[in-house]
């Protein structure tokens, strides 16, 4: 009898197969955008505004044009001649490419210079003289709606204030009735500070317009090449089939590399005007002050509680600071992303949420920084509010969560805001986490330490998030539904090429997507090449962000492999001389029912597809699949952190950090754990140090890595990982998204731990990041600490 294949050994589902990508990265042979050199290529640098809000009186570029080696000095007025001074955003607003009338944030693009090398191009930028008339500056939503505030977007017809959207969801009346019956109402206000995803590699592009063929090829740092192609076609009014977007290796994305930025557009326009390749590589300050930020939400919310701990209803309001353009990268239907996924993990009968967006003199954005469209913001407020409510009730925070979490038998579970949770074992995850950390013992330790003047604390964060946008009924970006596609071609020798529309930025698609095919066909993963990131050579896909690759493109991959298997079955029937109905599939092989020794391998079927096909059967063994997900996948996590706060300095140290993640079936456990640890580090960063703020003049504080603090190996704590597996019932291989869970759920665990360590002070909130002076001030003066800008200036 033929030996059954060992799926783990051939790199299938559940195999911690080593990464294919590593072979080139380890040798310094990656191909990042800046690594490409094209014949005749010239270099572009951008001149940025030093002021946050000012009218431009004049721009004098004459001296820049005189510098030897300068080929082009592009201004907004010149871009306007090509209808490119402004461009649309992903939220149906507009954003300047190069300023024409005003500058609206510090770092805004004013002009660009193209020269023989970047040094000369920078010299050219310094030779441009801009005359400004400064205007009053707005750096938070409350200033934006204050009486007499200047209208930032006076370019927009009919815009008379600084509000960019209003949105509501849920059952207002039902929620109000539930609040009327509450024994206790627990309130919380806080600010989730502005942050920047800050991949180490900045943005960049090489635009190569061929004036002979009129084909435009753009190498660029994009997480969503196919959407970029559509956007370039719209913005630059070029035929879509004559645009090729190549997204080579990307040095981290985290949502920052989803949008279209002025630098990309300028490099394209300059390449068209000069008819030669134009390279633009952004520097770190340019990246931090002008490309899309994340977070920056002010919340006011309350929970209606019964004495026994049951949550009856929730309502909250969000004021978002959107910067100078409403340019959130989000599905059309939603104005503050999936903020209304907050409180999904809890069985709460009624909910009502409102939101208002504001223009300010800050960089535009609102990208989904390692999350699914504002889900990080949603889960942070949720978990802070849950802890505050437990304290208000005088209830243990773990017990309060256990009481209110959605129970296993309730799935699929409809939330008050309309989401349908697919599956989960929430209590089990919580229990695994509590056992791992030794919850009861820690509480005793905390009490004993408190008696000696030491402050220990424990923070819990339990959350689910909607990953894998999204079904075509509800999810589109710029009118294009959020499906994904895959193409699979099996060659005569049984080796295969898989082409997908999503794009890795370190998640390891080239490794894991092959594993899905291996699971479906039994072709060893080492025999499958995964191609992605080139719009001429891959099928359409919405890109990689919001943890949607595995839920959507991964599903498309499984489905195309099944189509190929269905055809292989016909070939097997032909080879085995029986009817299709009499054939059974086992991994990598078909055999005649009842005669397991009489079979053919998938590789033999592949050869037959090219050399021995039955009459009437089309040759070849390939197919494609478009996958429109029926629902989001809903992973669940319990993150538990213990800390010690030094009351003398406000410094806090992480004692332990336990993560329990249920992301359904794990394709490659090694990579899943890598994603969790990376996300947890970003969570720690948000809680501890990483934020961008502004002074009263709109100067960005956090414009370089000396001010914008990111954790190093020295500060970052160690992580203890645990798993629970609840397969997604609607995903073809039962997988759920995972890349972002820890970054989404993690911050609240750290903050809750510090708040727990000072739970006797009456302090209700310290805004992130919990830098030592904020914690010290809260302890010393027993007051809440707000992180709202403007920060005080130095003098």
């Amino acid at each position: 009898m033929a030996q059954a294949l060992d799926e783990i050994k051939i790199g299938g589902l559940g195999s911690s197969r080593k990464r294919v990508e590593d072979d080139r990265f380890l040798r310094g042979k990656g191909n990042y955008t800046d690594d490409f050199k094209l014949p005749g290529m010239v270099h572009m640098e951008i001149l940025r505004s030093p002021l946050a809000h000012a009218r431009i009186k004049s721009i004098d570029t004459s001296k820049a044009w005189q510098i030897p080696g300068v080929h082009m000095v592009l201004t907004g007025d010149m871009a306007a001649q090509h209808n490119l001074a402004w461009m649309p955003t992903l939220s149906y607003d507009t954003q300047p490419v190069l300023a024409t009338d005003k500058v609206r944030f510090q770092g805004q693009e004013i002009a660009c210079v193209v020269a023989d090398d970047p040094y000369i191009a920078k010299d050219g930028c310094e030779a441009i003289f801009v005359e400004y008339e400064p205007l009053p500056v707005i750096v938070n939503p409350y200033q934006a709606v204050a009486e007499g505030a200047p209208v930032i977007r006076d370019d927009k017809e009919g815009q008379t204030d600084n509000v960019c959207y209003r949105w509501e969801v849920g059952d207002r009346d039902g929620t109000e009735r539930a609040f009327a019956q509450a024994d206790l109402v627990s309130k919380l206000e806080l600010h989730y500070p502005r942050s920047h995803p800050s991949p180490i590699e900045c943005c960049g592009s090489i635009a190569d317009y061929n004036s002979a063929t009129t084909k435009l090829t753009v190498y660029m740092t994009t997480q969503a090449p196919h959407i970029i192609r559509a956007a370039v076609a719209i913005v630059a009014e070029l035929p879509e089939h004559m645009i090729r977007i190549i997204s080579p290796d990307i040095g981290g994305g985290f949502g920052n590399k989803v949008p279209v930025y002025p630098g990309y557009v300028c490099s394209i326009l300059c390449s068209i005007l000069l008819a030669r390749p134009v390279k633009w590589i952004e520097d770190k300050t340019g990246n931090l002050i002008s490309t899309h930020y994340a977070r920056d939400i002010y919340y006011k919310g309350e929970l209606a509680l019964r004495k026994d701990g049951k949550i009856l209803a929730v309502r909250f309001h969000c004021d978002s600071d959107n910067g100078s353009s409403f340019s959130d990268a989000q599905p059309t239907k939603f104005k503050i992303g999936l903020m209304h996924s907050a409180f999904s993990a809890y069985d709460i009968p009624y909910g009502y949420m409102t939101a208002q967006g504001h223009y300010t003199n800050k960089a535009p954005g609102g990208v989904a920084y390692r999350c699914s469209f504002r889900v990080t913001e949603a889960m942070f407020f949720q978990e802070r509010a849950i802890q505050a409510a437990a304290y208000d009730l005088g209830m243990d925070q773990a017990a309060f969560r256990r009481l209110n979490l959605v129970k296993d038998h309730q799935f699929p579970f409809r939330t008050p805001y309309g989401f349908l949770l697919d599956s989960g074992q929430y209590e089990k995850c919580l229990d695994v986490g509590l056992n791992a950390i030794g919850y009861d013992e820690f509480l005793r330790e905390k009490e004993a330490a408190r008696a000696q003047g030491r402050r220990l604390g424990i923070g819990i964060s339990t959350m689910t998030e909607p990953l894998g946008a999204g079904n075509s009924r509800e999810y589109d970006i710029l009118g294009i539904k959020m499906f994904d596609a895959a193409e699979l071609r099996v060659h005569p020798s049984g080796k295969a090429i898989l082409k997908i529309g999503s794009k890795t930025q370190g998640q390891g698609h080239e490794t894991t997507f092959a594993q899905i095919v291996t699971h479906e066909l039994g072709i060893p993963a080492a025999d499958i090449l995964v191609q992605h990131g080139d719009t001429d050579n891959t099928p359409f896909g919405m890109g990689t962000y919001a943890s949607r690759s595995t839920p959507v493109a991964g599903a498309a991959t499984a489905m195309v492999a099944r189509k190929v298997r269905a055809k292989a079955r016909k070939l097997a029937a032909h080879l085995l001389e029986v009817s299709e109905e009499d054939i059974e599939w086992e991994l990598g092989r078909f055999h005649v029912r009842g005669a397991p020794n009489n079979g053919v391998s998938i590789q033999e079927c592949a050869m037959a597809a090219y050399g021995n096909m039955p009459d009437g059967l089309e040759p070849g063994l390939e197919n494609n699949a478009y996958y429109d997900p029926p629902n989001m996948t809903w992973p669940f996590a319990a993150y538990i952190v213990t800390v010690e706060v030094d009351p003398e300095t406000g410094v806090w140290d992480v004692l332990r950090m336990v993560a329990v993640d249920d992301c359904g079936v794990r394709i490659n456990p090694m990579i899943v754990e890598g994603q969790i640890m990376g996300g947890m580090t970003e969570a720690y960063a948000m809680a501890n140090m990483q934020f961008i703020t502004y002074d009263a003049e709109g100067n960005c504080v956090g414009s370089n890595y000396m001010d914008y603090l990111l954790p190093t190996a020295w500060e970052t704590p160690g992580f203890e990982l645990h798993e629970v597996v609840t397969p997604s019932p609607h995903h073809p291989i039962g997988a759920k998204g995972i890349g972002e869970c820890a970054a989404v759920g993690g911050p609240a665990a750290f903050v809750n731990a510090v708040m727990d360590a000072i739970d006797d002070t009456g302090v209700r909130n310290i805004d992130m990041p919990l830098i030592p002076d904020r914690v010290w001030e809260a302890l010393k003066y027993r007051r809440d600490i707000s992180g709202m800008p403007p920060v005080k200036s130095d003098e």
Partner: protein
Amino acid sequence: MEERRINVVVNGEPKSVDVEPRLLLAHFLREVLGLTGTHIGCDTTNCGVCTVLVDGMPMKSCTMFAVMLDGHEVETVEGLGLPSELHPIQEGFREEHGLQCGYCTPGMMMACKAILNENPNPTEEDIRWGLAGNLCRCTGYQNIVKSVLWAAEKMRSEAGSFSR
């Protein structure tokens, strides 16, 4: 600006090159020599993705001028291991999943090499301190630390077998 002749040894190979005085070492390696394994991240000596070894010492090549290299030796990721055979540090990063997007990896590995040159048997704390000048946004460092421990062990065992 007038160019200056510099004599340097890059990955064991002597080179004599004319460079503009303000050319950064990182640009010299990437643009003049075509060694694009050394990346550029922050321009402020913080992120460490441009880390190379100069006379065996880890240096951030984005804040050094190429002319400062005259008479010195530089080692980049391209000099680590052979095309056919990975260096134990490279192997360690692969075995322990010490990289994701790969952008910080060359600088990280060169910093690791400097740590292991100085201390063949480092503790986790030694490694974390030694890597504090290199940022990684993907991995959370835990697997990088494991990668270095893996490499250290392999290098020690290889050193042991050579001496026998």
